[in-house]
């Protein structure tokens, strides 16, 4: 018995030793709830080292769908929210969860499809017409279906095209952008994606951009400081510093400079 309790004591000590020290003693850091599209594109890998070097503030990014990111921020599990669903963001601020929303940058959505192009939408600019053709042809279409910014945008586009997307051709994956692309490409479906994710996506198969360039496909990103009045734990100072830097000339310039294969992924448009 004694032998055993000793063993257990050793085990407990080991376990305690294995428990992380982070969270207690660490350098200043902030938590950003953001979207998979920005994270997967590699933008943060480009931006954050510059900011961290300048300020010494570590930026931890949690990449989830816009809907979940907003929900997490409402639960006070973030200092900064960086997403792309303007209406939901404005509601977030209006409800008192955020301090103020800033335009940060934009890119655009595109519809990608297989080489065979069953709905013959390749080269189209009018997204409403393209969606109508896809629906008429009952060509497979893979939707995020996860309440993300991209999903919300897609739903509003179907609405303006006055189509109720239902039927076996409309496949809701309920997952992130990358997973939806993998699934869509796997089954030969059209997929609406933001351009940044598409450019950086590594498993394109025989897919190419079919529909692009419609003003309705504009994709605006915004950044919001989580309201410290609602969430006392928010690191207001560091979070504001990050937002200020992103919207500053320097931050905007860094966003502009981020390219993959010679293509610019995000276009800065902060009003400052």
């Amino acid at each position, binding site marked *: 018995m004694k032998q*055993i309790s000793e063993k257990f004591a050793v085990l407990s000590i080991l376990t305690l030793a*294995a428990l*992380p020290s982070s*969270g207690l003693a660490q350098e200043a850091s902030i938590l950003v709830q953001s979207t998979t599209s920005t994270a997967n594109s590699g933008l943060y890998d480009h931006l954050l080292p510059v900011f961290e070097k300048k300020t010494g503030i570590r930026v*931890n990014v*949690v990449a989830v769908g816009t809907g979940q990111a907003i929900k997490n921020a409402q*639960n006070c599990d973030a200092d900064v929210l960086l997403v792309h669903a303007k209406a939901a963001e404005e509601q977030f601020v209006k409800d008192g969860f955020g301090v103020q929303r800033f335009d940060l940058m934009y890119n655009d959505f595109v519809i990608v499809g297989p080489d065979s192009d069953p709905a013959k939408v390749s080269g189209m600019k009018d997204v409403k017409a393209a969606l109508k053709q896809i629906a008429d042809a009952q060509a497979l279409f893979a939707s995020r279906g996860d309440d993300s910014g991209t999903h919300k945008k897609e739903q509003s586009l179907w609405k303006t095209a006055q189509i109720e997307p239902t039927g076996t051709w409309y496949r809701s994956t309920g997952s992130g952008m990358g997973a939806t692309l993998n699934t869509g490409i796997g089954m030969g479906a059209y997929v609406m994606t933001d351009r940044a994710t598409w450019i*950086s996506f590594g498993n394109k198969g025989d897919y190419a951009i079919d529909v692009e360039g419609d003003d309705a496909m504009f994709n605006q990103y915004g950044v919001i400081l989580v309201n410290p009045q609602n969430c006392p734990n928010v690191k207001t100072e560091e979070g504001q510093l990050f937002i200020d830097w992103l919207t500053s000339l320097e931050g905007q310039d860094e966003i502009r400079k981020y390219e993959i294969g010679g293509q610019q992924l995000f276009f800065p448009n902060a009003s400052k």
Partner: protein
Amino acid sequence: MNDMTDSLWTALTHIVTFNPDLVEIVLLSLRVSLSATLLSCLIGLIIGATIAVSRFSGRSLVIIVMNSLMGLPPVVVGLFVYLNLSRSGPFGWLGFLYTPTAMIIAQTILITPIVAALSRQILEDIYEEYREQFESLSLTKSMRTGAILWDGRYSLITVALAGFGRSNAEVGAVIIVGGNIEHLTRVMTTAIALETSKGNLQMAMALGLVLLCISLSINILVSSLRLTATRLGYA
């Protein structure tokens, strides 16, 4: 097939060159899963041993519940832990969300039922064998518990391995409570999920192979330990 060989090649180059990012991810994975395994062994073995030597009404119900909990979906555990550790949840003040601690907690909850249920079975078999002798010796319950835990130690290692395997392989819980934050909470499985979602299937596969190698080496190590124990007559 070509993808597979490419993945293998990528995996090998990363391992051989000790890619620092990969090393960081592997070490964090091991730290999280091993801590969770140790913690769940502490809790689970005590529960398993206690039930093994106890006879009370509702015992079989407890065992059924425990066995069912072995199949807890990681995502559900992740959500449960998230709701508790969220700043707006009851334990938000601890500031554990999106830290390795949160991941350890989630995995501990996930695998404790496995350790408890499997060890209960093993220890009960040993106890049934020893029971009459213990009765004859008039041993106290704590002595009996201690004796079967010690005598079952080599079999219980397999239980710990099962727990470790499950925690090391799951992604659903850690991605929710850890957030897959680079350099902070990114582990093997969340990195694989991320690479997959980026469409970098080759890299994802390579990471998967690394994960497999880790679990293989740990299992070889433990199996040889067990073999030695069996040969020496202690298992």
